[in-house]
Each structure stands twice: as structure tokens, then as C-alpha cells.
């Protein structure tokens, strides 16, 4: 069992040392582990992680320390700078890797091995090292060398094929959704590998290969793309804002926004029809032909949608949401970010963590860190680090370099 003298269980994850060499496509992995307690050190080139220059920025004024993209994906991490393009930088990296529990990286598969710092190069000095590689298409196979960003992974996984309107081109999901599945699976793999090494008599580390394409395929399993083709020779398609899979199902305009609603069971339909009738007085909604399970209404979808729209325009989003739920119907608001920040359920779920930015103009803002609510543990609350903020702590405090050593590395543009 490892020794963590300071660890008392305030955070869920023991303070394992993790070197994070990922870009924004996989940075969420290290963030998740850092939020819950791991000691994640982001290793940045001396010019800084590219997402520091991506923005958006406060007031749209470019500032490498205040890129909101960087701040979102790197909360609770520390930062050191190191140039892996130099011999000296790689030498320092080998020393760091010798004492690390985990390395997470998202370079193309030849980058680290070509520089003599791949998994096989590093594990000789550190047999317990766990290394996770999160790449668009994985480390093996015909497409292993293919490049991809969020759009390309969303396309190749087929996730886009079912996103958007049926008669229009596929659409990218706007939260850059492909950044999460691979990162999440890598986090699970890393924790499992550490568990094996330290608590299940495994004793050794290992390499974990995660393909973002594969991970995203698993995030729409219930569309069953491969199965549908094998069984029926059909391809999955886009169904649009209002789906025909369940009737009615979708997002509908109301007085001040959109309401999402879905009616599946016969009982839910009867409750909805009664409510619509109360509001509109339109007897058509009570037509026996519309009763029953959701597909029983399939041929009447146009009239049912029209009836629903006529009904919904009498209410605000919040009125429909709460009254619908009171009537045991699945009615949910279509939220904007502003609504989420004001949402009383999230506020009471320990979800938002106020984090103070001591430098710069941001001040204290909320971060979505409370994925698990618990009386026993909490997430950390430390903003993403300034570039190289932990150089002294790591290089001097841990590697035992002198101030002169550090000055020399700086002069040589290594850190």
C-alpha cells in the first residue's frame, strides 16, 4: 500500500502524482482527477499550453493567464514549464517521470517515443508507472496516425450522423462533446491501474490506450448503429428537435423559451390530454385514436404537435416545467447557461464550487465540480495555474535543483 502521510480522506482520490501532457482534447481527464484530489502537474512548453491563447478572455482582451478555455479544462492542476524538444528538457522530464505515479498524454503516437521518453523508455526507472494515451483513433490500427479535433472525432464516431435535423447536414454538438468520453474512460483506467498496482497485489504499472473515436461511439449506444445495420440493413439517422421515436418528444416553443417534453406511457398521454383540454378547450385532443402507448400516436404526430404548440404558448417555461412535473409528466426546461447558474436544484446539490482568482480581473466564479455529492468528501477549489507557477516548488523543492540550476534552465529556454 502506498504511503500518503498527509492524506486524511478529505478528497476522494489520494494525492497521486500525475504528469499531465495533454492538450485540450484530453485535458478533462487530468482535471477530473485533480478535482477529486490527485496532484496533477501540467507540463507545459515554455510558451504555454496552446489553449492559453485560444480564449475567450475577460472583456475579449487577449491574456494568456485568463483564457477561459484553459481555466475550464485545467482547474485544480499545478503548472510547470519544460521544453521536451531539448535534451536538457527531456533529461528533466525523465527525472520527473521516475517519481510519478501517472503520465497522461495526447500527443500523436510517435512524439514521445521518437524523443526517447515513451512508456517503454520510462518504465525501466519506474516499473510502477501508469501511462494513459488519449488520441483520436487510438495507438494501434490503420487509422492510428490520423489526426483529428473535436469535429473529426464526432464525425468518424458517427455521433454527428444522429445530431441535427433530418433534412440538413449533421451538426457538431456545441460543447465539444468529444473531449469528454475518452478523458472519462482514461480516468477510470488510470484509477483501476493504480488500484491494481497498490491494492490488488499487482505491483506494476501499465499503459492504457484510449481512442476518442471508440469512446464516443459508446456514448450513443442506445442508437445501436452497428446492430441496426446488421439486423435490418439500415443506418441510424438524425431525428431533429422533435423526435418520432416517442410521441410527443422534443423541444417546443412557449412564451419565454423552449420546453422539453416526452410522453411515453398511456397514463402519461391521458394526463397530458386532460391538461391540454383544460387549457385550450379543444375537444380534438380527447380523440380516442390518440390514446395508448407512444407509437400508437405515430400516424397523428402532426396534429398532436399542433395541439401541443397551441397549448404551450399559454405558459412560461417554468410554469410548464413545474406544473408538468406535478402532473407526473416528464417536462423539463430547455436551459441556457444563465438558467443553469440560477437553478435551485444545482445550487442545493453541492454542484457549483466558488473559486477565487486572486490575480486578474475574474474574481470569484462558479465551477461545475460537484459531480458527486457527499458528506464525507469534497472537491478541491483551486483555479487553473498560471504558466510555470509551480516551477520552484517542483524543480527546487522536489528535484533538489539549486536556484542556479533553475536560472540556467531558464536561460537555455528549457523551462
Amino acid at each position, binding site marked *: 500500500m502506498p504511503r500518503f502521510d498527509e492524506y486524511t480522506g478529505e478528497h476522494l482520490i*489520494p494525492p497521486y502524482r500525475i504528469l499531465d501532457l495533454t492538450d485540450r482534447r484530453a485535458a478533462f481527464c487530468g482535471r477530473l482527477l485533480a478535482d477529486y484530489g490527485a496532484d496533477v502537474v501540467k507540463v507545459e512548453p515554455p510558451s504555454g499550453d496552446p489553449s492559453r491563447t485560444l480564449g475567450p478572455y475577460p472583456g475579449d482582451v487577449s491574456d494568456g493567464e485568463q483564457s477561459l478555455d484553459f481555466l475550464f479544462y485545467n482547474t485544480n492542476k499545478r503548472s510547470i514549464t519544460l521544453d521536451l524538444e531539448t535534451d536538457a528538457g527531456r533529461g528533466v522530464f525523465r527525472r520527473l517521470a521516475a517519481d510519478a505515479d501517472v503520465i497522461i498524454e495526447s500527443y500523436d503516437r510517435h512524439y514521445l517515443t521518437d524523443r526517447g521518453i515513451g512508456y517503454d523508455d520510462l518504465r525501466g526507472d519506474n516499473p510502477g508507472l501508469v501511462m494513459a494515451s488519449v488520441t483520436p483513433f487510438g495507438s494501434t490500427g490503420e487509422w492510428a496516425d490520423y489526426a483529428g479535433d473535436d469535429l473529426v472525432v464526432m*464525425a468518424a464516431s458517427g455521433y454527428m450522423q444522429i445530431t441535427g435535423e433530418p433534412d440538413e447536414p449533421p451538426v457538431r454538438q456545441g460543447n465539444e462533446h468529444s473531449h469528454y468520453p475518452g478523458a472519462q474512460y482514461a480516468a477510470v483506467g488510470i484509477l483501476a491501474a493504480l488500484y491494481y498496482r497498490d491494492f490488488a497485489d499487482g505491483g506494476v504499472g501499465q499503459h*492504457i490506450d484510449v481512442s476518442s473515436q471508440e469512446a464516443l461511439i459508446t456514448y450513443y449506444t442506445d442508437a445501436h448503429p452497428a446492430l441496426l445495420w446488421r439486423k435490418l440493413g439500415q443506418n441510424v439517422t438524425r431525428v431533429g428537435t422533435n423526435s418520432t421515436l416517442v410521441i410527443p418528444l422534443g423541444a417546443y416553443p412557449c412564451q419565454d423559451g423552449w420546453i422539453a417534453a416526452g410522453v411515453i406511457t398511456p397514463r402519461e398521454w391521458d394526463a397530458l390530454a386532460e391538461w391540454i383540454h383544460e387549457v385550450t378547450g379543444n375537444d380534438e385532443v380527447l380523440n380516442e385514436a390518440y390514446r395508448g402507448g407512444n407509437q400508437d400516436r405515430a400516424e397523428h404526430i402532426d396534429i398532436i404537435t399542433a395541439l401541443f404548440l397551441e397549448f404551450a404558448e399559454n405558459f412560461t417555461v417554468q410554469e410548464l416545467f413545474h406544473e408538468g412535473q406535478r402532473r407526473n409528466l416528464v417536462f423539463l426546461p430547455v*436551459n441556457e447557461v444563465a*438558467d443553469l447558474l440560477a437553478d435551485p436544484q444545482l445550487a442545493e446539490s453541492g454542484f457549483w464550487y466558488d473559486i477565487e482568482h486572486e490575480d486578474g480581473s475574474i474574481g470569484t466564479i462558479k465551477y461545475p465540480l460537484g459531480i458527486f455529492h457527499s458528506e464525507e468528501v469534497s472537491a478541491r477549489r483551486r483555479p487553473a495555474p498560471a504558466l510555470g507557477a509551480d516551477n520552484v516548488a517542483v524543480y527546487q523543492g522536489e528535484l533538489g535543483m539549486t536556484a542556479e540550476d533553475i536560472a540556467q534552465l531558464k536561460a537555455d529556454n528549457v523551462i
Partner: protein
Amino acid sequence: MTSSVTQLPQVGPSALSGIRVVEFGPYVALPLTGRILGSLGAEVIKVETNKVLDEMSFIPAWSRGAGQPEYQRGKRRITLDVRTEAGRDLMLEMVRISDVIMTNFRRNVLDRWGIDFPEIRKQRPDAIIMWQTGLGGHGPYYTYKSFGILVQHLSGVSLMTGLPDEPPGVVNTSYSDYHTGVFQPAGIIAALMRRNLTGKTATLESSIFKSGVATGGPALLDYQVNGRGPQRRGNRDAWAVPHNVYACAGEDRYIAIAVSDDEQWVQLRKAMGDPEWAAAAEYETRLGRRRNEDTLDAGIADWTRQHESLDLMEKLQAAGVPAGMVSQGQDLNENAHLKSRQFYQDTQYWEAQRDVKATEWTEGESVSWSIPAKMSATPIPFGKYSNIGEDNAYVFGQLLGMPNSEIERLEAEGVIY
């Protein structure tokens, strides 16, 4: 009838060997968590009953149950009606021999059955409890109903998708069920480490709602800092240009192309055969391409329309241009890359039938994916797919030490059913 004990295949050392998990609840997210933990070597025991089948057993409607192996592989499946007194007692016995209890039933339901969290703690003081909820287990919405596909609206993602003034952009899947399903094993494994190191246990409450919002991205910060709602850009990007999907030869076929620097643009021009229009000065720089993005996209689409999406992807990638075909089911099935990684594998399943005991359902052929993490020292097996109740003999007989006669009696009484 008591069935024989089924042996699970072992491909090598497994990461979570020695950990036992009780999975208690239906649908998508919780069973996915169970599949992941089971694949990593934990002994996951899924408790369900033939009397109230998971509705997912009947999905997809065109091949009822063929999609279930994807959620239920690699676990032991037993039947137990916890609403009976004997069933509840057996459930608590299972709690006593397990490290982790995870459920997505509501508080009032667990209370009614006498399997509430205080009772679980009493039976197994050091149990890790994962309580998965829809909108939250406490707070103003705790009685509210939801389901996965609509949570993309609730969590703000649909109004980040598509273009301004368009309706919310929707993906046709149970959106954040999957985030929740993969967050939960991380929380559980970490809680087990913490328990080993400190002796402390933990109850963790997750929600489908929170999992969706947690992956909202930098837009969550932009609103707070700049008072600005999400930028809906369709398939275009804040940085890269050209960055879009383009129609290809055939019906409903597209390719995504994402050019992030001038060098990639030069390579794209070459791949297109250096057409005259693309040599224009206004496209040379990123800023110029941004200013003229509409004509740029139209020019590229004129070219892509003449080619197959797979051919284009391979040609562009060989030239160093990030590109990806928009894959469909047939593509994924036949894809050489996924085949060489053994991503999809053949599996048997049982065709679900209402009012018929699952062990009497007809077997058929299906396909399911492998866990998307290849671990070198503890390789993740594809895992066996057990039918509902298939592992009764193993769990009740071998683990709980019940004699066959007792198991048969409880089967006849509808407790183990």
C-alpha cells in the same frame, strides 16, 4: 430449476479482483457502470426480477434485447424479488458480503423495501454507496421525472448546438446517461482506495443532470465573466477554418474537414488538385479564410461532392489534413481500423418476451462494443453475457451457501424469480 454454475472467462490478471459490487437498478447509466466495473475485474452482481423487467430489455423495439449485452456484459445476474420478506433478507445478506452497493432507485422506494441507506450501513458499515439519481436525491426537484434524451436540453447543451435562431440542436441518444455511467466507476474506485488508506467509507450521490452540466465546457465560465450566452457556431470553429462538414457522393454522406493552420490549407489545396479558386489571395491566411468562409465552404463542397467520404478521409489524412467521414452503422461494422482493434465483437443475446421467464427466451446473435480502454497489464476481457437469473446457482449456492433445496423452494415461492 437450479442451473449449474457458469464460469466466467479469465484473460489475465484483472485490476479490481477481490472487489464485489451489488448493482440494483434499471436503464442505462447504472448498468453501464456495472459493466465497466465488471470488465475491470470486480465481481458485479446485478439484482433484478422477472416480475418487473427493465424496460431496456425490450429495446431496441426491432430486436428486443439485442442491445442489452452492451450494458450487461461481465456481470453475474440473479433474480430476487426484494419486495418479499425472504427476498429482502437475501438482499441484505448480499450487502453484507459486498464492498460496493449502487442503486438508482428513489429514496422513498428503497425505504418502502427496507433497503434504505441506514440499513445498508448497518449491515455493512464500510460499504461504498453510489446513489445515482435523475435530477438529484435531495433539493426541489428530487421527485421530478426525467429521461436521458431530454437531459441534453436541461443541461444546456442543446442551446450550444446548431446556429443562432435555430431550434435547440438535438442528438438522438440518452445524452448524459453515458457521462454518469462513466463518472461513477471513477468515483467508486477512488472511494475504495480511500477506504483502504483511511478506513473511511463514503456515500456518493450522482445525478444525470449534474453529469450533463459538468461537461458544458468553457461556455459556463464565459457567461459569468462576460455575460455572454453560448456561441452557436454550427460546424464552424472559433479558431480553425475551413472547419465544416461537406456533402459527398451518395445519399446523406458527409465528410468533416478541420484545417487549423496555413500548412494544412496548402495540403488541402493540393489534395483538391490545386483548383484556381483556392489559389486566390483572400484564402491564404487564416483571417482571410475566416472573412470569406462562405465561398470557401462552397468551393470545398463542389469538390467533395464528387467523391466517396471514406476515400476522401484517407486521402486527406495521408496529406496531413484532419478529416473524418461521418460514419454510419454500415461503416462502423465494416471499418478496417475498428476491426483491427477488435472494437466490435459478436455476442449472443436473448430475445425478450413479456410474461415469459427470461431463462426461456430464445437465443440470438448480436454485436456489441468493447470497453474503449486497452490496458496492457490487466487486459479488459470482452466478458460473458449472462441472461437474467443465469447466475442464481453461483450467487445463492456458492456465495451465500444456500442448499439447492432451499433455492428451489424460494424459486417456487416466487422469491428467487
